[in-house]
């Protein structure tokens, strides 16, 4: 089933505020087996010029996964999640995500296309502080494999 090109540009309501916690950042860094002290030690982070511990460059996936679900769950999108694979992912950091950030995620459909029966859906998620400071933009491309 081809995705409707008219979906491009559709935006969804902003998420609830997500407060970035030091322990969550440390847990994420541990899952990447990354010993860098700037993910755990506020003094080390400050010595590197950051106000608090910062998050690894791919940490924003934690927020964009949740925000992206509103798109996948949109009945107008009608994507079969059991056939979905992650095709592509991009993070553009306006500044590093750091502990204490209170972030709001807004999802927008950036692109849809159908190639050889596979639907490709690109969702952009803008992460901004609750005061409106842009922090990170993520773009996720999901591929729904066509029924064999």
């Amino acid at each position: 089933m081809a995705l409707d090109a008219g979906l491009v540009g559709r935006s969804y309501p902003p998420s609830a505020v997500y407060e970035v916690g030091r322990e969550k950042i440390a847990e994420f860094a541990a899952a990447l087996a990354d010993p860098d002290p700037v993910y755990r030690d506020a003094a080390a982070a400050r010595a590197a010029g950051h106000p608090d511990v910062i998050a690894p460059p791919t940490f924003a996936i934690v927020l964009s996964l949740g925000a992206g679900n509103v798109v996948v769950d949109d009945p107008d999108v009608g994507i079969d999640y059991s056939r979905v694979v992650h095709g592509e992912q991009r993070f553009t950091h306006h500044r590093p995500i750091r502990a204490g950030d209170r972030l709001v995620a807004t999802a927008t459909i950036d692109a849809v296309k159908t190639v050889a029966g596979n639907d490709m859906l690109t969702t952009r998620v803008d992460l901004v502080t609750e005061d409106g400071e842009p922090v990170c933009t993520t773009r996720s491309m999901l591929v729904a494999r066509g029924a064999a």
Partner: protein
Amino acid sequence: MSGRPADVQVGTELPEQTSRVTRADLVRYAGASGDLNVIHWNERVAREVGLPGVIAHGMLTAGLAARAVTSWAGDPGAVVDFHVRFSRPVVVPDDDAGAELTVRGRVAALLDDGRVRVDLTVTSGGEKVLSLARAVVALS
């Protein structure tokens, strides 16, 4: 800032990074990321949907690739853009050795404002698992 590479030119290579990913690592990443997709921990379901077995989260592979860049750059906050395209699943066997993941990288372009583009080659078992893996790093 300390630890950042000096004399970076086009062709400068990053230190090669090799990681092992086991089923336990997948469970840890599932919890940390919130990606609880069953294909990353349940062999039966993975096979039912046509996969050769349990596969690693694409974002775990991407995160390990990014780690090669941040450890080279010195400051993870220097990575201003990171972009990956997934081309092949990393199958993680149910044993203690897991899957091996190798990340190689080189500076592909010098951009303005002291930024450089790093292109990565990420392989498992000799096969490329990312068809694109690229970071923009602000070195100054």
